[in-house]
């Protein structure tokens, strides 16, 4: 009987080992370990055995049963693993194929430059002031110390609509309007971005429409040295920590003293190159201490209040920063141009 059991075990294990899939394995299990299987059959004949033999054969029969079960389990694990690997192999894709593109547009580079400048000044406690693009002669010129017949009006040939109305030539009228609203009470701390217009023929460096950002601070005790501090912070933020700035005396009707700010060339670091016209310096913006006439016209006491103002062109800054060679690119809106600024 023991021999019979032993033979069954060998036979079962052979079949298990040869099983090709889980289903066959299940059949083997039913065939050998099922209630109608040969081991059960063998054990049914145990009654014929002596009392001494019975527990021995019983134990042996359990041993055989366990052995087959272990064989089944091991094979089952093996087959399952094989099945998973097979499925994974079938499911393999070419990961090098391009993905489904997510839709993404982009901001216009001028918007990016303007917002970058806005954010810098917002962090310094400035607010953003805006005003109309069609302006009165008064706010565009007279309130800024440019009376009619002033020769400096020629510096900015304008698009007049009527005698009194014109397309603003600068964003400075926003300064005049804002100061007026403050009714002689400081502090005023604004920047004003926007579109401006001048009678220039469009070419690589001129545009009849362009952007400007101006800043204005009016308070008690505002000094030229403070202007220098603000501009230095701006220059380092926009053009890199290692930039140096230089102020040169200049002239604007609405500031006195007036200055122009140069930054050390970011291309050649001052050694001289084509970008800086071999001077080592690049002109970035105009600025100055608000002219007492402008303060007085806007209702501020120029004995008590002083202020500074500065103005710059985002096109120029973008052209310098990204090496753009033609201002007309900003207004042609070529998708191939716009796409390049997706990450700025």
């Amino acid at each position: 009987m023991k021999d019979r059991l032993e033979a069954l075990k060998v036979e079962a294990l052979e079949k298990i080992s040869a099983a090709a899939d889980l289903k066959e394995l299940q059949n083997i299990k039913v065939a050998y370990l099922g209630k109608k299987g040969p081991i059960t059959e063998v054990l049914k004949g145990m009654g014929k055995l002596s009392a001494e033999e019975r527990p021995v054969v019983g134990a042996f029969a359990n041993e055989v049963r366990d052995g087959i079960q272990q064989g089944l389990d091991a094979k089952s694990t093996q087959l399952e693993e094989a099945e998973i690997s097979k499925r994974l192999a079938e499911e393999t894709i070419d990961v090098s194929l391009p993905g489904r593109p997510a839709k993404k547009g982009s901001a216009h580079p001028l918007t990016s430059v303007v917002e970058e400048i806005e954010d810098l000044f917002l962090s310094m406690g400035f607010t953003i002031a805006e005003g109309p693009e069609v302006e009165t002669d008064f706010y565009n010129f007279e309130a800024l110390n440019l009376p009619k017949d002033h020769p400096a009006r020629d510096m900015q040939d304008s698009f007049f609509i009527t005698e009194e109305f014109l397309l603003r030539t600068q964003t400075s009228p926003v300064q005049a309007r804002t100061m007026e609203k403050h009714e002689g009470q400081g502090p005023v701390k604004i920047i004003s971005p926007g579109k401006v217009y001048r009678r220039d023929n469009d070419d690589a460096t001129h545009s009849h429409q362009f952007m400007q950002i101006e800043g204005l601070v009016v308070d008690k005790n505002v000094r030229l040295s403070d202007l220098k501090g603000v501009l230095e912070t701006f220059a380092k933020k926009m053009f890199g920590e290692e930039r140096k700035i230089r102020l040169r005396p200049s002239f604007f009707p609405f500031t006195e003293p007036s200055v122009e700010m140069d930054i050390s060339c970011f291309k050649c670091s001052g050694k001289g190159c084509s970008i800086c016209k071999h001077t080592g310096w690049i002109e970035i913006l105009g600025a100055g201490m608000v002219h007492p006439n402008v303060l007085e016209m806007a209702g501020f006491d120029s004995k008590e209040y002083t202020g500074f103002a500065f103005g710059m062109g985002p096109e120029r800054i973008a052209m310098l920063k990204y090496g753009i060679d033609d201002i007309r690119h900003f207004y042609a809106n070529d998708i191939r141009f716009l796409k390049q600024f997706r990450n700025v």
Partner: protein
Amino acid sequence: MLLSYNWLKDYVNVTVSPSELGDKITKSGIEVEIVENLNKGVSGVIVGHVKECVQHPNADKLRVCQVDIGAGELSQIVCGAPNVAAGQKVAVAAPGAVLPGNFKIKKAKLRGEESNGMICSLQELGVETKLVPKEYQSGIFVMPSDAVPGSDALEYLNLHDHVLELGLTPNRADCLNMIGIAYEVAAILQEDIKIPEVSYTVSEKSAADFVSVNIESKEDNPYYAAYVIENVTVAPSPLWMQNRLMAAGIRPINNVVDITNYVLLEYGQPLHAFDYDRFDSKEVLIRRAHEGETIKTLDEQTRTLKDTHLVITNGTVPVAVAGVMGGADSEVQDDTKTILLEAAYFDGKRVRAASKDLGLRSEASSRYEKGIDRNRVVQAAERAVALMSQYAGGTPAGGKAEAGEKTAPLYHVSVTLERINKLLGTAITTEETCKIFSRLGFEYEENGGTFTVTVPSRRPDITIDADLVEEVGRIYGYDRIPTTFLMSEARPGGLTPLQSGRRKIRAYMEGAGLYQAITYSLTTLEKSTGFSMNKEEVYPVSVAHPMSEERSTLRMTLIPQLLEVIQYNQNRNMTDVAVYETGSVYINKQESLTVLPEEKLFLSGAMTGVYQEHLWQGEKKKTDFYLVKGILEGLFEELGLESRITYEQETVDGMHPGRTAAVKLDGIVIGFVGQIHPAVQKERDLAETFVFELNATALLTAETEQMVYQSLPRYPSITRDIALLVDEKMPAGDLYTVIQESGGALLKEVTLFDLYQGDRMEEGKKSLAFSLKFFDPERTLTDEEVTKSYERVLKSLEERFGAELRK
């Protein structure tokens, strides 16, 4: 202004090189744009003396010259210039010499004759043609007879000089002349200034014997002086003077004209020389022109004048437009013997009016416009008289005929040391300030920290204390001013709701795959309108003098220019384009503009072609109406307005009548979305293009409620579907609204999930299927409740639209 470095040395001791001088001038306030070396790489050009000049045996146009170049034996040089002649002193580029453009001179044979170099014209030495005296423009330059053969020709021609180009701001008209610049340079270099000494001998006659001067208006013409110089011989001016004029960008003409130009450059005082014998009267009368009066100016043009123009007359007819240009009839000519020299101070406004109207701008007019130094009128005139007596052989009559007041009243400006330091943020001392004023040549008194400066008449730009602060600051040096930080109270900066809303729109549009465009506000009259839903009367705003029809009128819609962007890209093979713009439109409701037009911020977009594709998987999503509408729906959600927006079929100029919807916010039209009219598409050569235009100001200023959190449903919802058969023209939106209205409080969501129109459908009908979701956050709903609500909905639909339930 072009500044000759060598000429400047007449007035001030210049201790630095031209480029260093340029740097220093730039740093202290006048931008030196270029420092130009007049020597354009020329070397080896020497003076030659043409001893003999004969016809070339084999060439009509060539001459063979024997030239003494100081080398002992004569050099044979073949020359093609028509004006070459024996006896001339000329500039010779001998073999080994270099001309501009690194052109090396070698020995050559010209038509069989040996030539040892070339005889040069001024152009060949790098002088611009427009500066070369007329007589030498098409030939070689003839040098003065005392030039020494073999010596450096460039030395005679002052071509070793440097010229600094000054970019002068309008306030620094004082530097439009050599003496003014000399004051500036003297202040910078801390040197003294030398003004030319003027003296001349006069005849027994007096200028008053020749002419009298009368001024009609002292405001238009505060001062006028006339000098008379007899016996002049009109001839070329001395070479040194010609050289200086050329360096300053003025072409030499003859001694009389050159002297007036030279003094103009030296003193900044415009002068005009009349031919006294052609002046035709003994009276100079300065008056306003009569409206329509004419004058033939020096350039032989007949000019019609206005009564805002100031003219010089001989008592009857105009002989010059004051400060702008002289008349042809009294012009100095080769036979002129007696000069009537005008030196005057005209009101800049009058000069500007005439120069603008006549389109004539000159060295003189621009100086008058910017303001000249009245106290220098007489000095300059006398300098010119002295030069004419020296270089034109003239005999000046004594004195001058004059009218008006020759000296400007002096005035003072005060500033305190405290003000200087407070405005600059510096700690400059009294001593330093005194020193700076002295360097500038300003007379001043200092009393307890207050400086009272007598403003020199050359500096009319100084009128208030801030002007003096600037003078002190710039001479002290802006690089020495410290860097400080604003001391004002800290206040948070921040964006207004409109500004942050604009940024939100930008971010959303980018995410939706649109590129931001910025187009011009000015367009054609035709494109400024159109695509308009404006039911009110509006009037386009045009600029008075447009530069072109293309940029003449302010836009009232952004769409035409966005279509141009699409065209621009299509022409460059980019057929899939999605752009948007936020920008102002300008709405004017008056026939004549008496108040500023209303500026509204518009958000517009244009899309065409494939919106999204995945090529290798063959997926392609084309832009269509619902795609664009979906983008707007997302935007309205982003702005928290989705429940207040409705769409209605609408007709808009230029839009497809069946594929355009008005967009309403709280029932008020704020824009539209739709497809461009096929006729317009064809006209503009566009593929199917979809656009939207919204009043962003209205969107961003709409009052929105503070967002309140809704607790998440704890009880299950019940969904019922309803499929309806309706007339095919019935807008789904109408059904949707009625379902929502009739569904009651428990109906929380309505979604259209199927639309069917086709063969299996009864003629003229379509089927729409909605899914209705009911729930109550507080409890579980019963079937009966839901059924009741569902039936109410169905009943309303049947009653309102004749809808049938589809089984």
